[in-house]
């Protein structure tokens, strides 16, 4: 399997992800902001009208904002009608899937240039309303109907993982600590405070001191959401948007001398309910999608030098690093504890802070990962730059792995 025509990213932009900063803005305004930044990032200039199609990842602005038909809204607000505009909904993998479709659109010969974006404006609703909205990504008839929420599905997954591999919650805490540390180096991140600083701040309010990060994370200031997952095992509720501009390889140099090639893509599905699977500790859709992406890019797991993986919950990062072939099954948590996935480790995972610290405006996440890889592979990631990386990977997961989108990127 391959593409008839290669595709590269020539520009990328994103808003900061945050829950309060964008209170006065709607999703369309966030998306315009991200797209304008993407346009401005194109080295040799780009006009929005040069795009032949728009693919938009959006989970449920219908619920979050009372606005449906979002691809049309965005095309209108970018001022580029009558551009073909497509909304893609694969839950939390919506814009990763949109990116894969954008690549296919160019590879098919239908168009030379595509804008792919994602947006979610979540913060207008309260916690219970957001919990209800996110649960739509699970099986309404057979999971949420018996009391499952979205975090609790991953809590259940973690319980099975702990049992199978004799793993511990401390390994999950290592993911939290690492990703928050990375977030302090990313000006686009929702949280830019490490766990040590957060522990001091929250402890001070309460007249308590914590001798280390783990002591704080084990305390009642980090309450259980769905056991064994605590608040700091969960990504926050964020508003934000991201956009990339894709161009066919044969014309990419019109736009930049340093494009980032989408060397391989993969997309796979799995049962909507976690209970329908034979093993709850692996996401088969990740395994299949990455197998296809590696084959298309002609690379192996050991060739990947930096990766953004879908850490909506800490356990999801651990499982992802195993399913992607980076570490043996049952070893992902220990690898994190040993610092192997840290910014200065052998394979930096989520150098931008991941969903955990960067934030997870659901529909924007897949493209925000591509944004990060575009910056990393061009050496423009700033303080969280991983030195000298040429091959990167993004893994974007919908719900508990019923949809997975993967891309392998290579410096052009």
């Amino acid at each position, binding site marked *: 399997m391959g593409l008839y025509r290669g595709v590269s990213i020539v520009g990328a932009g994103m808003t900061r992800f945050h829950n309060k900063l964008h209170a006065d803005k709607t999703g369309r305004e966030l998306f315009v902001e991200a797209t304008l930044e993407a346009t401005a990032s194109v080295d040799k200039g780009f006009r929005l009208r040069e795009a032949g199609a728009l693919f938009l990842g959006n989970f449920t602005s219908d619920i979050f904002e009372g606005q449906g038909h979002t691809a049309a809204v965005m095309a209108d607000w970018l001022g580029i009608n009558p551009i073909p505009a497509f909304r893609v909904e694969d839950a939390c993998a919506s814009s990763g899937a949109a990116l894969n479709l954008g690549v296919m659109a160019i590879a098919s010969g239908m168009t030379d240039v595509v804008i792919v974006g994602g947006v979610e404006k979540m913060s207008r609703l309260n916690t*219970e309303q957001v*919990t209800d909205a996110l*649960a739509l990504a699970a099986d309404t008839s057979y999971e949420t109907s018996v*009391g499952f929420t979205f975090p*609790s599905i991953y*809590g*259940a997954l973690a*319980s*099975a993982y702990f049992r199978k591999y004799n793993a511990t919650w401390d390994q999950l805490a290592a993911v939290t600590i690492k990703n928050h540390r990375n977030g302090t180096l990313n000006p686009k991140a929702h949280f830019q405070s490490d766990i040590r600083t957060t522990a001091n701040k929250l402890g001070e309010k309460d007249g308590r001191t914590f001798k280390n990060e783990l002591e704080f994370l084990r305390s009642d200031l980090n309450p259980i*959401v769905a056991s064994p997952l605590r608040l700091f095992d969960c990504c926050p509720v964020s508003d934000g948007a991201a956009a990339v501009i894709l161009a066919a390889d044969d014309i990419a140099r019109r736009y930049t001398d340093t494009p980032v090639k989408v060397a391989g893509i993969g997309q796979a599905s799995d049962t909507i309910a976690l209970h329908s699977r034979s093993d709850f500790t692996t996401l088969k859709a990740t395994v299949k999608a990455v197998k296809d992406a590696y084959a298309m890019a002609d690379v192996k797991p050991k060739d990947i030098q930096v990766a953004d993986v879908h850490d909506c919950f800490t356990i999801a990062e651990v499982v992802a690093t195993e399913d992607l072939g980076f570490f043996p099954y049952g070893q992902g948590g220990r690898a994190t504890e040993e610092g192997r996935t840290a910014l200065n480790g052998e394979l930096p995972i989520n150098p931008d802070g991941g969903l955990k610290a960067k934030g997870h405006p659901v529909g924007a996440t897949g493209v925000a990962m591509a944004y990060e890889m575009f910056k990393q592979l061009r050496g423009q990631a700033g303080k969280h730059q991983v030195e000298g990386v040429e091959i990167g990977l993004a893994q974007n997961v919908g719900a508990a792995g019923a949809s997975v989108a993967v891309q392998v990127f290579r410096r052009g």
Partner: protein
Amino acid sequence: MSEFTTKVFNGFVTQGKLMGTRCKSCGEIHIPPRRICSKCNSQQLEWFEFKGEGTLEAVTLVRVPSSKFRNRSPYAVGIVRLDEGPSISGLMKVDKPETLEVGERMRFIPIKDGEKTILGFKFL
């Protein structure tokens, strides 16, 4: 015989029956019922009644519930691998939900919830 729908499945749950489908072609059994076999894609399926006993394979204590489960919080929800093979999600009706652990033997029970019935499990 009735159709393989969510409504019919839920009706059986209310009656205290855990029903799925069995593929006449490959023998695969499924819960909930399906119209198309997920293993061989045959449409030759028949109703199959589960005994309702199994082992808890995944469990979590929910402290931040959805709106419909607000009044039950905290509660345990999990996945039980039925002795016949397939597994299904259910609400755990146990005295100390926070102590529930993977590996427990469980038995299916319908849990009354106003007009509706929730698929639940209790200790075997």
